[in-house]
């Protein structure tokens, strides 16, 4: 009886909430579809680690088939065919899935963490801090991000991580605006004031009281950010500002485009484009479904239906 069981109980709460939300989520056809597509891509990404082990021919970047000297269509050995130097397109597609995940998730993570932190600080601190942070956010919002990316991309050597970083840097302001407004509305909630009256420090209030309340929203935004990060990376690669040493779907499209196979090799053109759309779609669907889980108004209706 006298034992402290706070910790496990605490976790249980989250598990309970998670399972509850999960139940709502999985009932949502959109969430379900999204999840199925997403798992397929996850499998692809995982496969990308193993396929190159089959032989040097299956290395996405350097694995040129010695018997093939031009772009070929699907065959038994190369399921989707090869590009013009004889590299397996399917392997590239798998690698692309991995890269899309890395880019999408890490961009989203960085920008959401940054956006959430800044949004919370800005909203909670108010005053001059708020003004300055939000003006900075305004500046980032106003700049056309793709073009800024182009400039920055020429400033630094292009590696996938630099690109991730740049995209993330360009994408935090919208997150922080939303988190800020959420924080503003939380800030004047009695439970925050109650905690202040109890003597809690600003630090504690931000992390113990505000953060758990904005986290679901931040998480939701993360899925949307994943979508935009993947699209931006693809666009960058397509324009030739991607990491040239890294296979990605955008790169594949760039290659099919720049090597003049655009309308000659549908087996090369279509898969990456469709994958980009499908993967972003799945994340987007996930986000929409999550949105409904999170939005109490919608959720109420769901529960009672």
């Amino acid at each position, binding site marked *: 009886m006298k034992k402290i069981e706070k910790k496990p109980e605490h976790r249980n709460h989250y598990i309970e909430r998670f399972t509850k939300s999960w139940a709502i989520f999985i009932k949502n056809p959109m969430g379900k579809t999204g999840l199925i597509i997403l798992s397929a891509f996850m499998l692809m990404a995982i496969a990308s680690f193993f396929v190159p082990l089959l032989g040097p021919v299956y290395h996405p970047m350097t694995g040129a088939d010695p018997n093939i000297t031009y772009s070929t269509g699907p065959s038994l050995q190369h399921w989707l065919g090869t590009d013009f130097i004889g590299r397996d397109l399917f392997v590239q597609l798998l690698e692309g899935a991995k890269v899309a995940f890395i880019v999408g998730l890490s961009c989203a993570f960085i920008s959401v963490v940054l956006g959430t932190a800044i949004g919370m600080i800005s909203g909670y601190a108010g005053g001059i801090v708020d003004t300055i942070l939000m003006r900075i956010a305004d500046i980032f919002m106003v700049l*056309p991000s*793709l073009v800024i990316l182009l400039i920055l991309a020429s400033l630094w050597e292009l590696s996938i991580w630099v690109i991730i970083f740049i995209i993330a840097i360009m994408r935090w302001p919208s997150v922080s605006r939303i988190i800020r407004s959420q924080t503003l509305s939380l800030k004047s909630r009695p439970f925050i004031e109650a905690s202040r009256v109890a003597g809690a420090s600003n630090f504690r209030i931000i992390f113990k009281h505000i953060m758990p309340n904005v986290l679901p929203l931040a998480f939701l935004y993360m899925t949307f950010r994943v979508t935009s990060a993947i*699209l931006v990376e693809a*666009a960058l690669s397509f324009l030739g500002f991607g990491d040239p040493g890294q296979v990605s779907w955008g790169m594949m499209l760039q290659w099919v485009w720049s090597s003049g196979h655009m*309308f000659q090799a549908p087996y090369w053109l279509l898969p990456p*484009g469709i994958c980009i759309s499908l993967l972003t779609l799945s994340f987007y669907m996930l986000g*929409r479904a999550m*949105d409904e889980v999170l939005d109490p108004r919608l959720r109420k209706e769901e529960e009672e239906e």
Partner: protein
Amino acid sequence: MKTKKIIFNKLIEITILFFIILTVLFFLFRAAPGDPVSRMVDPTLTPEDIQLLIAQMGLDEPAWKQYIIYIKNFFSGNLGHSFHYGEPVSNIILDRMPCTILLFTTSTLLAAFAGVFLGKIAAWKKGSAIDNVLSIGALLCHTLFIPWFALLVLWAFAYKLGWFPLGGIISPELWINDTSFFIKMLDVLHHMFLPLLTLFFIHLGSYLLLMRSSMLGVLKEEYIITARAKGLSDKVIRNKHAARNAALPVITSVGLSLAFSINGGALTEQIFTWPGIGRELIFAVSNNDYPLAQACFLLITAVVLIANLIVDLLYAYMDPRISY
């Protein structure tokens, strides 16, 4: 009186923002490696030649000095000459601007109207087949990879079916023979159709989804129930009471998406050979044509800032609760 003051304050704020952006950009460009000359791989150019060219472009001065000169010129209305065109940057911009505006405002507005209209219907019939079709369609639009889509559109409608020209803004064949203004206008519209269609679909998705969710929120408001209690018809409730409120966030998004359209626009312009600002900007950035790139950039920034201001005002007009 008070409104005026607020607008004035906003304008000051915008101006400050504008100059901060100008400064950041200026130094960002100068920090980029290479210079406009380094790209010229003509072995007949001696290092002295290159040095001369750089000096003539005023790039041999330290960056801060260049900045002061730029600011000075800026205030006297001189944005400089493009390194590559040799023309005053303002000429180039004045040339490109109408094309971009024509295409993007039309497509954004059309998409916004269509998005509001369809989103309204989808929300009103939530869960129905129409809603599902619209939502999924919108999702697909939202996740389209633009260049890919644009090229496919071009291939299908311009090449395979031959209904539309393969890019460009006019048919030179028509224009070199003096044709009537009316035909020329039709010609421009004919050329505009495919890029318009592409941009329309790209934007449509997000507006539709936004309108739908916003409308769903509004439909739960008390005043909708009140309106029903009054005995108003569904149409009146939907269009007058719900849609108007629900469209407010879409307005904001239209303002913000102007920035986006320049992004997505660059690619679309490239593929449809549309002679707009976005294409010019990409060219200028990748060729280190600083004056041109800066001017395009500042123009976009100014447009976005002003658009946001207008959106704010419009918002205040549409939503009486916000008072300026």
